[in-house]
């Protein structure tokens, strides 16, 4: 597996599940985001994900470290860049922890934080041939989130 958290093309969720569960962990929580076929009433055919690669890699690593510290969990985060089709996975968060409460909390925190702190931009492609960058949220630091 590449050590990069930013990957070209759709993510294969199974890749992040291949690692065995640590023997002291009882809870595995996973979130994956996939491309939907409609957004704000427009038919979507795909999304081109753009990133500032160096800062995005750093922020994804910071989310893993901060989640580990806040929730006492082992957290892996990955995000796709490039052209994705409807149904493709753009983001995967995997959390392994002692019990389910921390697993869910860390997983939810990681995806919510990723959306506010990682320099990635969705350029949606529509069935009518148009494309546009979505409105986003001003970037924050991981500590602020």
């Amino acid at each position, binding site marked *: 597996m590449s050590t990069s958290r930013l990957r070209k093309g759709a993510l294969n969720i199974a890749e992040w599940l291949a690692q065995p569960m640590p023997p002291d962990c009882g809870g595995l929580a996973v979130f994956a*985001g996939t491309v939907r076929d409609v957004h704000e009433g427009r038919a979507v055919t795909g999304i081109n*994900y*753009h*990133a*500032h690669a*160096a*800062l*995005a*890699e*750093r922020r994804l690593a910071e989310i893993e470290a901060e989640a580990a510290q806040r929730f006492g969990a082992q957290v892996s985060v990955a*995000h796709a860049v490039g052209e994705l089709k409807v149904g493709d996975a*753009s*983001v995967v968060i995997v959390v392994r922890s002692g019990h389910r409460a921390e697993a869910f909390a860390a997983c939810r925190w990681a*995806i919510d934080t*990723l*959306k*506010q*702190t*990682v*320099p*990635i*931009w*969705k*350029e949606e492609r529509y069935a009518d041939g148009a494309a546009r*960058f*979505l*409105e*986003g*949220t*001003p*970037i924050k*630091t991981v500590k602020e989130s």
Partner: protein
Amino acid sequence: MRITVECHGASQRWCGAELVNLDLGEAATVADALGRLAERYPELALRRDTVAVAIGDDIVAVTHELSDGERIALIPPVSGG
């Protein structure tokens, strides 16, 4: 000094290019660079307060002093996930 500006995400649309060169005076800051871009690109001017600036893998303050030949990146509001 001359610097290069990488336009990420929607800022590519606002500036009409992925890379923009700017000629700035001595002792210019990130704020000066944003000011110059805002003069040229009205769409960027409208959103200036929502845009961060990165150098390498750091977000820098608007008070950061630039060097000749430096490369900065515009980080408009993010929409990953």
